């Protein structure tokens, strides 16, 4: 009897699905929002997110915003032509299934935004040779339909460092704090810390950058505690960050010190504290990639290839400087930015910048000086060329002089 009952339940479930199906067929003619309706263009974009597209801030939000903006720019409608599988963990099987879904829906290009999608994207690129695979933060690629992309966020962090440096000079306090998801374990966080530190030191050579590592990409409570420790115990006057939420800035605001956010202009969260934040404009890349995939997918790898751009392409930048910034900040940032955009100078080279002078007459001096890590080891000789991109992206695991990890 019991068995029969359970069978009937399942039959009932099946029945409802049949009804739902019938409903679907009767409305299919309207050409719904899904992938099967005919839209103006046949080009479809697929995306695999680590969090949700409905987030209102953070990493996935930044990418989703970039993709939708880029699609509008090239004449695609994100409501019709964008397919998303969200909350995909870094699990090959789940990523592969997501890719199958997106491929089945006819996507022509698939973006994967998290590092752990690496294996699955590599494998599926070989299977679906007519689809372009594009992987953020990864290091694998092939010469036909699989590239990786990331940006020189350290350049933007250098610029934010300048703002922090001027603040510390004005406050006569050399202690600067940095709440970081990870420390030297990841080149991404490590190069960010170093870029920021060198920016600070270009203004205030006596500054000390105190890094507090929270060992997770995002945890609001830990981010908060780290900022509190840096301010209360280490007497930091500016709090920079490489973590997901605005908590470090909010703490700085509460405690009457200053800060540099990340990912978005955090002046709205910390109006009295925030100086400027390094930000991503992902649409700069997404527009390039989608356009190339639409026009000439066969030559995607020669036209776009592995993408690693910075201030020059507008992929990274600093947010608008807030009123909390010192008066010299704007000029100094503009000078440094110009040098990086033109390619005349870059952060991790054997040449260092030193800013001096008052507002209206800020001057920069370029001097040959070795890039030295905080144990005294020479990384780049005085006047030498910049550290390799491969190192900055993949294996940088030392702090430059002036940086200390406090925990």
């Amino acid at each position, binding site marked *: 009897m019991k068995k029969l009952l359970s069978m009937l*339940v399942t039959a009932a479930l099946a*029945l409802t699905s049949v009804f*739902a199906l019938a409903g679907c067929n009767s409305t299919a003619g309207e050409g719904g929002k*899904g992938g099967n309706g005919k839209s103006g263009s046949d080009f479809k974009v697929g995306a695999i997110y680590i969090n949700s*597209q409905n987030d209102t801030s953070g990493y996935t939000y930044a990418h989703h915003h970039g993709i939708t903006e880029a699609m509008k720019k090239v004449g695609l409608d994100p409501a019709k032509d964008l397919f998303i599988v*969200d909350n995909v963990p870094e699990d090959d099987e789940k990523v592969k299934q997501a890719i199958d879904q997106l491929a089945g829906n006819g996507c022509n290009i698939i973006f994967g935004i998290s590092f752990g999608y690496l*294996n699955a994207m590599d494998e599926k690129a070989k299977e679906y040779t007519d689809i372009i695979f594009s992987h953020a933060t990864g290091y694998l690629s092939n010469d036909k339909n699989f590239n990786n992309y990331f940006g020189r966020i350290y350049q933007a962090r250098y610029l934010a460092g300048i703002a922090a440096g001027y603040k510390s000079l004005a406050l006569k306090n050399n202690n600067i704090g940095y709440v970081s998801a990870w420390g030297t374990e990841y080149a991404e966080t490590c190069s960010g810390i170093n870029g920021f530190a060198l920016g600070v030191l270009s203004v205030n050579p006596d500054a000390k950058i105190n890094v507090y590592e929270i060992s997770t990409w995002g945890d609001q409570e830990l981010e908060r505690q780290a900022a509190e420790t840096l301010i209360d115990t280490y007497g930091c006057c500016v709090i920079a960050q490489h973590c997901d939420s605005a908590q470090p800035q909010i703490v700085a605001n509460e405690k009457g010190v200053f800060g540099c956010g990340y990912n978005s202009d955090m002046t709205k969260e910390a109006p009295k504290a925030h100086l400027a934040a390094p930000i991503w404009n992902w649409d700069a890349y997404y527009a390039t990639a989608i356009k190339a995939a639409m026009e000439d997918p066969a030559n995607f790898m020669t036209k776009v290839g592995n993408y690693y751009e910075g201030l020059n392409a507008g992929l990274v930048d600093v947010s608008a400087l807030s009123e909390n910034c010192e008066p010299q900040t704007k000029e100094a940032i503009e000078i440094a930015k110009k040098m990086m955009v033109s390619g005349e100078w870059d952060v991790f080279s054997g040449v260092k910048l030193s800013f001096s002078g008052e507002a209206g007459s800020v001057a920069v001096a370029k001097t040959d000086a070795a890039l030295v890590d905080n144990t005294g080891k020479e990384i780049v000789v005085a006047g030498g060329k910049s550290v390799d991109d491969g190192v900055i992206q993949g294996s940088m695991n030392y702090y430059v002089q002036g940086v200390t990890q406090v925990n």
Partner: protein
Amino acid sequence: MRKYHLVRRADSQLKRTLIYYAIGILISLTIGAVILISLGINPFEYYGRMFTIGLVGNRYGYKSVEGLLKIFVPLLITSLALSLSFKMRFWNIGGEGEFLIGAICASIVAFNSSGLPNFVTVVLMCLAAMISSGIIGVAIAALKVKFNTNETLMTLMLNYIMLYVIRYIGDTKADWNFFLRKDSERPIFGSFPESAVMQGIHFGKFNLLWSVIIAVILTVIIYIYLKFTKHGYEISVVGDSSSTAKYAGMSVGKIVLRTMFISSALIGLAAALAVSSAGTVSDTITNDVGWTGIIVAWLSKLSVPAVFVTAILISVLQYGCQAAATQYPAIDINFADLLQGIILFSVLVADFAANFRLVKKEEAKNA
């Protein structure tokens, strides 16, 4: 003051149960529809895509069926295994943990299997997983038999221990750690060598994995085991009353140990098949079957054929929810999870309502 009592219905009417289930599902779909309409989405269209697991208009439809089966196989085997232990009222809620032990041990074999023939490797992976999970299952059963420990607590904690073990493996870059991809600066699980990847029978493009065939055969075996063997009979007697079993001269301890070994070993087998089909391991490899399996077993009233059907339907629900969500940029997986939760919850409530009724205290006295 009014007092209400829950009373089990004396009669178990088929028609009533059926109607209750239908109402429950209808209510949950209506709630979902209200949310969908508020998001400007046609619910009929959405549900259509959901219950057809996004097959309509899918240019790689066969991939969707393969994907569905990859969800279905571990869920089916785990649900069957859990039914075995639930049948003797041993509350094994450690499906997740037992699955992960199996997955880790199968992966140890897999990562070191280069050069071995595929068949040998997969069999070794299954054995490693079944033995390791089985031993853990027996250990917990032994604690229960010997010291009367609470198996619910023990198996529950096992889940978290194993979850953190596999996370540790996945996050630790070290020379000994052959689980990870060698060329990556960041820790990330590697892929199995070709020798450890589950093969299948090709029907055109569609690849029917051997794991599906194994799972179906296993279902038949377990059905026969429970229905027609002495062991199966013993399990049901222990479930009804362990005192009865004792008086009948059965060795309850032995039966509990044996059944728990089979139950955990089966979950280990599910894990081995899952990692082999996936070609890799991860901390989310269980796909929550240890939890979902409990619901499947419960909804099926521990009946083997019903478990088979329910596991299919739950897999369709899971896969379909994701497939439908993919096609609507405004819908994220949270909505899919929410809908799944509402549907399962209302089915459980309907089940409860079909078997119990509320009566006022006086009424209860009179009855």
